[in-house]
């Protein structure tokens, strides 16, 4: 059959044993953008089907966490929140932290959870974790509503006065960093989980532990002041900067460290790119080992 005419036409694509190191096919991802949106829609629509409270569940979870944090850390343990109502302080921390935690938890399960779909049909695998991050962004948006609600309450009733300034434009940027960080770490872990299931267990409680060193329910200064020997844990934790900065923007408490933010940005980019590469390498063969 080799004597068919010499064809000058190029091959459209090749299926080879290994992906090139940086062969993320952005064009292909773009072609599947509708799928991305449909996955997001599916995840949002189906999660609370046949529940009575529906999307209210999105609100209750951070609210109750924040209330419990307020009772334990502020009322019992007496952590000061710098003049800001403790509930508001905790709510901001919890909501932003939650975004990262759910992104990480859910993306780290990508390959294992979707093995049945991935085993039957091809689409750029990265669509899956991307859809998770976007779905959670919608959730975050809803959760911010409750924050705004309490914000207005405290301003009106409690005479808590604070003027938002133009630093607020930094906030979406912080959320994007949080999303990319969760996505990047999630992709790394999901790739390793296909072979080594041990990590699944590590992630669930690892994320819990991480929360305590991410300045979620206390100001960053507090640790540096009380436990100087563990200050580095916070200092090198990019998540702590994101949460601290968000609170600085929204509630004017804590400091805005430009150096810390730049560090966070670089860290996120490195983690995300590394995640993409390893995810890309894994997606070709994971179905044999998952």
């Amino acid at each position, binding site marked *: *059959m080799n004597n*068919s*005419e010499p*064809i000058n*036409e190029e*091959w*459209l*694509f*090749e*299926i*080879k*044993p*290994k992906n090139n190191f940086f062969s993320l096919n952005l064009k292909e991802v773009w*072609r*599947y953008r*509708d*799928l991305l*949106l*449909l*996955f997001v829609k*599916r995840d949002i*629509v*189906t999660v609370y*089907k046949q529940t009575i409270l529906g999307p209210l569940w999105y609100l209750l979870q951070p609210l109750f966490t924040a209330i419990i944090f307020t009772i334990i850390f502020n009322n019992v343990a007496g952590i000061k929140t710098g003049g800001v109502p403790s509930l508001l302080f905790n709510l901001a921390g919890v909501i932003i932290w939650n975004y990262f935690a759910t992104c990480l938890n859910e993306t780290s399960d990508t390959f294992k959870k979707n093995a*049945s*779909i*991935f*085993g*039957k*049909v*091809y*689409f750029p695998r990265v669509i899956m974790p991307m859809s998770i991050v976007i779905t959670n962004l919608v959730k975050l948006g809803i959760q911010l509503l409750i924050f705004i609600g309490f914000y207005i309450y405290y301003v009106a009733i409690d005479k808590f006065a604070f003027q938002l300034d133009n630093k607020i434009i930094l906030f979406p940027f912080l959320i994007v960093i949080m999303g990319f960080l969760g996505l990047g770490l999630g992709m790394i872990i999901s790739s390793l989980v296909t*072979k*080594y299931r041990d990590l699944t267990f590590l992630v669930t409680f690892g994320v819990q532990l991480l929360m305590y060193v991410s300045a979620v329910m206390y100001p960053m200064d507090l640790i540096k002041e009380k436990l100087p020997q563990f200050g580095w844990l916070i200092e090198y934790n990019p998540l702590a900067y994101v949460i601290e900065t968000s609170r600085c923007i929204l509630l004017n408490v804590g400091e805005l460290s430009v150096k810390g933010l730049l560090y966070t940005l670089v860290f996120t980019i490195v983690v995300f790119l590394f995640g993409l590469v390893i995810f890309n390498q894994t997606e*070709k*063969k994971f*179905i*044999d*080992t998952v």
Partner: protein
Amino acid sequence: MSKKRIILKAENISKQYRLGTVGTGTISHDLNRFWYRIRGKEDPYLKVGESNDRSTKGTSEYVWALQDINFEVEAGEVLGIIGKNGAGKSTLLKILSKVTAPTTGVIKSRGRIASLLEVGTGFNPELTGRENIYLNGAILGMTKKEITSKLDEIIEFSGCQRYIDTPTKRYSSGMTVRLAFAVAAFLEPEILVVDEVLAVGDAEFQKKAIGKMQDISREEGRTVLFVSHDMDAILKLTKKAIVLENGSVVFKGNSDEAVRKYITSKNAIKTIQSWETIDSAPGNQYAKLKNIQVLNSKGKANYDFDVSEEISIAIDYWDFNAENKNTAIIQIFNDYDVLLFSSNEFNAPEWERFHDGKESIINTVCKIPSNFLAEGKYTVLVAVGNYNPNRIHLKIENALTFSIRDNFLEGVVTVKKNIGGNWPGIIRPLLKWEVTKEI
């Protein structure tokens, strides 16, 4: 001679799998691989591995599910891929549809490939039929716009108009499959890879599905790779086919020939098997098989039987068993591999007397009565062993084959009398009916 355009080309495709569970060995192999790679050497585990014959016991942990697969597909061609279970069909499909990567080799394509390894991938039971059409279509690679433009056709083809805005969890399983196939049928890739999705739905829908497949290839000129166990569908839909066996291509060419090759390799006509010497014969120190045959009433080896004929299974074996009394055993399986019955030589009145502990050759014949088995193809398992304690000295699956048909011979009474068509039931005994009449 018109020049053809090669749209898909597989070059030296191989796929290696590691057997057993993924456990502590994995990390050491991975590290070893990594060590070889950074020194610029070849993967040490690529050299090992055996061909993938399920039934034999191998020594290596690695097997080759596919080895050196080469083929080309022309644009607009429908290529059939046939092979037994475990021949490597699914692995090849998975590689073609990019679900997994080959271990070596490359597939080059000039068109978008969409694969249908399963219908309804990603269906969410909570979503309505319409929402699922969008979701499933997008998973298969369609854009929202494409789906919207074909939505009415898809719904009509599925025949689920009334339920289209109901969650699919309320659908019957048949309806789900119809809807799923309808989505797939309106895919428009240059190359469509189809696994045995046609084996779903009722007869009417299957006909519709086959018709749609024919349209896709003939009228729309698209390339289809079609994998099936259904030789009928292969013959109807394809002109060319490849036959896979233990991970290698054993035949490439006309589908007619390919199907014949496949059927004979699976259901070879085996009416006689004999072993010249004791050494080459199957068995152990207690018994060795000498000769087995399917015989007709004239004592001749035969394959095609009429339903009214008696079938004899003859088994001759060397009996060396001084401790226990050996017995020959047969088991009859139909085309669906259902064990119909098993029968033992010890039912013979002479059995007790003949097995006296002395070395001898035992010649046995088991007679399967006429008008007893249904029409179809049968395989015979032959074994020799002893009971109490139970021991099998030799066992050959698929040792003999025969086929039974109702030829409506003149002057012969059968269950069917002269009625055509399929007769229900896995056996077809001619039974005695007693009838009285009251007025």
